[in-house]
């Protein structure tokens, strides 16, 4: 192991002492470095409670299990059943729609708010602290709060019929989806605002000073410096929004129960119903696997695009 690893990265060792002989260098590079044993407890725990269940989803999706006894192998039965179910197909489209809506609304909003909040002014700091509050509430609390606020009989819509018509926002598909998108925006925009705020603060000031000297106005600075510099954050934030959107669950469970009818039954909620309401765990696992595949594809994109996996060499070699 020693020869192999030092062969890969001699640069760090060189920092320790340039004039040493080759063999001492190799020794210094290895002294005080933890072995992989340090990672074992966390890895075992994580494998047991996250990776193993992930693999088990695949197995369970080929079995029939009602929650009692043991799962029985049934081949592709669950798969043919869920793929024949129009509600399932509809739920995929609904998931994509909700996710797309979330990205389309939250991205511009959080970029604007984030860049604004990145300013060092005192009032901006105070307002940002307030903007942050929805993020502290659990999804459950947020959903319960908005369910109460939008209650057809006792909520805001009943007060403002000029705006909301009959006041029952949960009664039609378009308004119900609108409510879900709005509540997610209300809850998650602060998080993405925070990402953009951090990224905007990290943009080197010289860029703006140079632009100022060249006579570029505020808007040109925004479009030609700020936005391009935020590119990586846009990618990360979008991916987080996609993963979050695909797995929206509490909001649907508490606000619409998938209704009216099945008009807001998105995949994650459909899975919950199959498994824990109809006790058809096999079908639930099959739907979950669809979610896993979607999430894995996205996570691979995260790692590739953001360069997280290359971060180590970039940072340590400095």
């Amino acid at each position, binding site marked *: 192991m020693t020869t192999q690893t030092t062969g890969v990265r001699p640069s760090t060792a060189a920092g*320790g002492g340039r004039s040493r002989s080759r063999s001492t260098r190799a020794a210094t590079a290895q002294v005080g470095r933890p072995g992989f*044993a340090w990672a074992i407890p966390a890895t075992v725990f994580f494998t047991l409670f996250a990776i193993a269940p992930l693999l088990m989803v695949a197995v369970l999706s080929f079995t029939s299990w009602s929650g009692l006894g043991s799962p029985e192998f049934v081949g592709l039965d669950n798969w043919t059943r869920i793929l024949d179910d129009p509600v399932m197909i509809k739920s995929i489209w609904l998931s994509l729609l909700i996710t797309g809506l979330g990205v389309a609304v939250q991205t511009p909003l959080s970029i604007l708010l984030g860049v604004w909040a990145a300013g060092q002014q005192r009032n901006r700091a105070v*307002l940002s602290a307030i903007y942050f509050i929805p993020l502290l*509430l659990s999804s459950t609390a947020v959903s319960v709060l908005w369910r109460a606020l939008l209650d057809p009989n006792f909520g*805001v819509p009943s007060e403002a019929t000029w705006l909301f018509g009959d006041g029952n926002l949960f009664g039609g598909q378009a308004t119900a989806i609108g409510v879900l998108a709005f509540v997610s925006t209300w809850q998650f925009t602060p998080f993405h605002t925070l990402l953009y705020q951090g990224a905007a603060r990290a943009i080197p000031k010289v860029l703006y000073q140079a632009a100022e000297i060249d006579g570029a106005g505020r808007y040109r600075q925004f479009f030609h410096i700020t936005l391009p510099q935020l590119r990586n954050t846009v990618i990360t934030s979008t991916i987080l929004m996609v993963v979050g959107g695909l797995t929206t669950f509490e909001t649907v469970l508490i606000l619409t129960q998938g209704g009216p009818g099945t008009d807001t039954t998105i995949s994650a909620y459909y899975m919950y119903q199959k498994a824990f309401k109809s006790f058809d765990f096999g079908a639930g696992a099959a739907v*979950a696997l669809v979610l896993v595949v979607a999430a894995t594809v996205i996570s691979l994109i995260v790692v590739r695009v953001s360069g997280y996996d290359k971060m180590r060499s970039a940072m340590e070699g400095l």
Partner: protein
Amino acid sequence: MKRRPHYLAGAGSLVWLLLVGLPLYVMLAATVQTRTEYARNGPLAFPESFTFDNYTGAFSGGFGQYLVNTFIVTASVIALVLLLVPPLAFAIVRSRSRITSGVFRLFLLGLAIPAQAVIVPMFYLISKAGLYDNLIGVILPTAAFCLPISALILSGAMRDISPELYEAMAIDGAPPRQIFFRLVLPLSKGGLSTIVVFSALQAWNGFLFPLVLTQSESTKLITLGLYDFQTEYGINIPGLLAAVVLSTVPVLLVYLFARRALVQGLMGVGGK
């Protein structure tokens, strides 16, 4: 650089303030009104009288017990994360072993595993392990799902420790254990407090695991309590909102006292 204020942005920020602030105000205002007053005057009215009955009602409805349960789960999740993640992050940052870079990839992959995706097998595993309807059965998966982001945050913090310090200790012949306790842990306090706050939030606000893995009153967590309250007494809006406020107070306190750690933790996810 002194600049003129940006009026359009200012106006936009005020609109957003209204969107965030108004619901929060309505929530607080509703909780000090009686049900009849709230129903009569509507959500936007200023409360005429003040009552704390909604809060005491929530406590007598079992929320005291739920709060205690949630505290137990949160503290245990924090303990597990603090036990597991620092050695892991140390290995990720400093180990030259190929296995650790593989491990790091595993955790990165884990970043995007949604809890929903594994809930069916989790139910199976926890039932088979005899931990169904037991707080331990909620603690274990919740902690596991805190690990990827915590590992990412903490290894980021450990990377910021200058390599010269590591090398100085290594030249003095310090074993990894000594470097870990004398150098790495003291210098990554910021990262540690961040993962503590992050995991605490995850545990406190978690919903899906308690929903699926518990069922009795004695193991009910606060989020599940809210959900059940809503399904059973949904029309008692002031009572319901008082419960929402109660569930949030501890988090608000953390926000007041550990705002930096919280904000940094959240930014560490995407900012690095």
